[in-house]
């Protein structure tokens, strides 16, 4: 098959409002949690801001008037506020945390279920890495937006508002003064933090460069050692780490400058307050407690303001994540079961193609008017040049793709009237490069039929001629297959996948024969295993091996999307047509290799 070329899935563009609403909708039936934590965080900001106000009253009303009762009164109120704080804090952590975990779970579930329904054509266009990031990092970034970023945003706004309100209550003239400083503080904080964020973004980019350097060196260590290029390689690497050092240091330098700068601005504000307040104090305009409260409020407002840029940058990233996730969730499966589709319990094995046309992309026709009847139990070998349409035929039979024109009948029934699952369950497919899952060999074979017992698994593996190599492994059937089957050799993987297919006991077999070179004895075992698998079943094989072709009941020469010739080997050779020239060309290679 041709190498796939993936393009980044074309992103849908959402309006910010739509996006926002959809993110909120993700909370689903957990909406009370969303409301709960928003209320809690709002109340928390207010009660937190009132602490300072109460302390001011302790000073101004209690101490200044030498009124001990007033001191106790306001201190008791203060204690109540602290208790309320504790309750609100519990509330927003609990509600937001729970909301986050639950929405993450349901979002991932939704995505997983959705991916399961998508058709093959979707996976042709989309790399698994793309989908992986949608389900992991993007999903958690969206729930973070729904919880902690909302929280930060609301807390910050409420915080500043509440502080301003209390300041106006205490002394409106001074509050106005602060209001003038505020925009300057916000703007400069945003600008400055923007610079820092840019540096850190660069650090991240350099960091992934460092990581890929490490990974290349570790996986290429044998070549490095045998070529003796350790020093040279290390020197190259030092160039990367050096620029990483410089960028990180710059980011650190700017960060070190940021906080003092913000604090100095505040100090300036405090000085203005003291200066203005001092004169006002003379005329009895503001109290000592009032000045102290003002200082506290200004410091109190600083936190959300200096955090603003970070929250904003994160929100943008989350919105981008949401766009990607919603694009995925909005993609529709191209092949959907009809409502009246029936389940089937078995296939006799008659497969008919009636005037079948197919194209992956509109402009490139892959199959052109294919007419074909496969009799039950027949073994069909497909041969022909790469790109001629062989693999497409094998993909159309289990309805991984549907023909754009024409019909396919299974046992005389149009297969669009059959549910996909029940059809695919009865068709066994053995791919060229078999994919195994991590887990034991036993579990991998069991994948063919989840309810099979140990006996049945071993007997299937014996039929596949896989048993002998499995029992020679250290942990026998419990040996780990590795991710994708990486702990086994290619030949062993094929044997296991044949055993898996035998256990599955399908009525129709589709086989894409391997082309890679495997040592002669293992190759021999695979051939014998396949013979067992194909026995008494309808089979369609993309054939690369001479022996397979010879055993076939019928050979189809597929070229340019059409069936050019068909018949038994000897007949086709006698024709001296496409098959003959193909045969002499393609199998000369095999002849030379053997």
């Amino acid at each position: 098959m041709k190498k796939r070329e993936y393009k980044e899935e074309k992103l849908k563009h959402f309006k910010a409002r739509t996006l926002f609403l959809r993110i909120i909708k993700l909370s689903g039936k957990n909406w009370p949690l969303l409301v709960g934590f928003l209320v809690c965080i709002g109340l928390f900001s207010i009660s937190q801001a009132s602490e300072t106000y109460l302390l001011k009253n302790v000073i101004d009303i209690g101490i200044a008037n030498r009124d001990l009762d007033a001191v106790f009164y306001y201190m008791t109120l203060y204690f109540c506020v602290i208790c309320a704080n504790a309750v609100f804090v519990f509330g927003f952590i609990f509600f937001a945390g729970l909301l986050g975990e639950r929405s993450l779970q349901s979002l991932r579930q939704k995505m997983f279920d959705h991916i399961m329904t998508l058709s093959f054509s979707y996976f042709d266009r989309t790399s698994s890495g793309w989908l992986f990031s949608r389900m992991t990092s993007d999903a958690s970034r969206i729930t973070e937006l729904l919880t902690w970023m909302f929280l930060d945003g609301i807390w910050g706004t409420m915080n500043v508002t509440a502080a301003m309100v209390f300041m106006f209550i205490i002394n409106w003239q001074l509050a106005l003064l602060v209001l003038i400083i505020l925009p300057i503080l916000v703007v400069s904080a945003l600008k400055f933090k923007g610079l820092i964020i840019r540096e850190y973004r660069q650090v991240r980019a350099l960091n992934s460069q460092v990581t890929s350097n490490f990974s290349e060196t570790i996986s290429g260590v044998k070549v490095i050692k045998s070529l003796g290029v350790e020093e040279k390689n290390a020197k190259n690497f030092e160039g990367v780490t050096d620029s990483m050092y410089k960028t990180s240091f710059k980011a650190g330098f700017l960060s070190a400058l940021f906080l003092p700068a913000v604090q100095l601005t505040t100090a300036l504000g405090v000085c203005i307050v003291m200066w203005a307040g001092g004169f006002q104090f003379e005329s009895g305009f503001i109290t000592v407690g009032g000045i102290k409260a003002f200082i506290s409020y200004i410091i109190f407002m600083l936190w959300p303001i200096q955090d603003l840029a970070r929250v904003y940058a994160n929100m943008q990233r989350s919105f981008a994540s949401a766009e990607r996730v919603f694009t995925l969730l909005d993609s529709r499966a191209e092949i959907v079961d009809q409502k009246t589709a029936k389940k089937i319990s078995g296939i006799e094995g008659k497969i008919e193609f009636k005037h079948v046309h197919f194209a992956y992309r509109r402009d490139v026709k892959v199959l052109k008017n294919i007419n074909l009847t496969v009799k039950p139990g027949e073994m069909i070998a497909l041969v022909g040049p790469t790109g001629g349409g062989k693999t497409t035929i094998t993909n159309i039979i289990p309805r991984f793709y549907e023909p754009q024109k024409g019909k396919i009948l299974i046992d005389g029934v149009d297969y669009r009237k059959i549910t996909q699952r029940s059809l695919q369950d009865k068709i066994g497919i053995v791919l060229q490069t078999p994919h195994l899952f991590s887990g034991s060999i036993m579990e991998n074979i069991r994948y063919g039929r989840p309810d099979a017992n140990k006996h049945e698994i071993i007997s299937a593996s014996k039929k596949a001629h896989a048993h002998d190599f499995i029992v020679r492994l250290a942990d026998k059937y419990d040996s780990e297959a590795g991710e994708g089957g990486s702990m086994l050799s290619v030949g062993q993987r094929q044997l296991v996948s044949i055993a898996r297919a035998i256990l599955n006991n399908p009525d129709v077999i589709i086989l894409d024969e391997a082309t890679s070179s495997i040592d002669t004895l293992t190759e021999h075992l695979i051939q014998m295993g396949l013979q067992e698998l194909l026995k008494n079943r309808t089979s369609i094989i993309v054939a690369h091996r001479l022996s397979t072709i010879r055993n076939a009941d019928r050979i189809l020469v597929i070229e340019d999307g059409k069936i050019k010739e068909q018949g038994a080997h000897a007949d086709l050779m006698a024709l001296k047509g496409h098959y003959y020239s193909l045969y002499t060309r393609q199998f000369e290679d095999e002849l030379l290799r053997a």
Partner: protein
Amino acid sequence: MRKHDGGRDKRESTLLVLKTLYRVLGVYKKTFILALVALGIAVGLSTAGNFIIRDAVDVLIAEQVSGITIIGFALLFLATALLRGLSAFISGKCCAKSAEKVAFKFRNDLFMHFQLLPFSYHDRMQTGELIQRATSDVDSVRKFYYEQIPGVIRIVFLFTINFVAILFLHWQLALGSIVAVPFIILLSLLFFRKIVSGFEAYQNQEGTLSASIQETLSGIRVVKAFARQEWEAKHFDKINAEQCRRGKVLVILHASFWPLSILLCGTQFIAIATIGAYLTLSGDISYGTYIAFTAMVASIIWPLQELGRMIIELSKSSVSFFRIKEILDVEGEDMELGFELKHKLKGNITFKDVSFSYNEGVPILEDINLQIRAGENIAILGLTGSGKTSLVNLLPRFYDLDKGRIYIDKYALSSLTKKYLRENIGMVEQEPFLFTATIKENLLFGVKREITQKEVERAAKMACIHKTILSFPEGYDTLIGEKGVSLSGGQRQRIAIARTILKDPKILILDDSTSAIDAKTERKIQEALDQLMRDRTSFIIAHRIETLMKADKIIVMDKGKIVETGRHDELITRPGIYKKIFQIQSDFAKEKEHEKTRI
């Protein structure tokens, strides 16, 4: 792998850890100390600011106010603020410098060390594990110097400086301010210990979840082919639900810690502020003192909530540090140990009773005896796992022998330096590794002498790759790898062959190096290889009899032993593995030939 022992002699080891981590700073010790001193000054100045406010208030209360005094106080306050800002900046800058330098040094050291680590180590360790140590563990250590130590020291300074200041104001009040402190610290430590283990459990589950997603996605075609969507969904459901459950545990922990801590700190503050108010009213302390006092008590109590988190993070970073050190402590290969000859090797090789195993008790090679004359071609045949590759890997000393000796030109292999040995041995592997660099750079990797473009092209022509290279947009300067063109297996093998031609070694090892090349091209390359093998001792590992039959000596291996040796025509007359494989392969060929002629 050596497990890290955390439990024993904890106090002693904490001290040792601190000492080691101090030593790691190297020439940046002074910078780091300066950072901490500046931090102390900044904290001290903020306390001083409170005293200025105290005096200002008291002066105001005494109503001896003049505009000049007020401006004086304001200027003084501004000056302390300025100085404080300056110290904080110096502290931050110095922290950044020392932390980033440490990270820089660790990255470079680890990189070089990875290249020097023996194969036996690389075989045991997974790539991902090593990368993680070189990236995220190094980052933890960086944070240790950048955030964690300064964070803890800052809390310590805040506590001591303010406490001493309050002591100076009113000592009974000062003692009363810290009644709840032990409880706050205890609570914080206890909770964060739980939170850390809860978080680890959560992270582990996240790993399981990611792995499960990854697998399903990469095997999606199998899932569909077997119609196992529902089964997979159920499986994922379980993992996902467990993740949510572990997340809830964490949420509940946080939701209980913070309110408790707020209550504890708040009560302490209110209690002492009330007592302070009472003392002010009874005239024990001044109005201004009360105001400064409440500000300072606040900076003693509230930061302590975070102490537990910081201490726990500190201990986690030290684990990261030891994970890095564990690698650096593994002895790397000494490339220079032994002696070198002035001239190139001739290539006589003798294996004498050689045995070898990767793991004790599982022998890979047993009692190998071989005599190879300089310039001979040796072909090795055998099933997967019979020890072919292990045998040739011994020659560049990628592994050490368990038993026996190998001699090259009468010198014991172990007496020659690895550097010299590897310069004299060329290897081409089944799946050759190419670097993310241009084709030319890849070809010249490992060549120590000056080489002209002409020579490069000649080597590429010999390996039948020159035309392919020219077909790329930038010819020899085309980038290969993720960001450049991707090559087929056969093209990679041919580039590796050209690379070895340029290296011009005296001993050549071809490990299944033409398997991905089609038969026609192989025949062409074979000529190049034949030429390359002339005057060099060479080893070829292959499956195809056709590739092997011309060798001076064929070795058949089975289960770590040499079971047959001889020339092709000798071996096919004897019953054995060679004959069997030869028959399977030639029967097949004959059958085909037969069919062809029949038609």
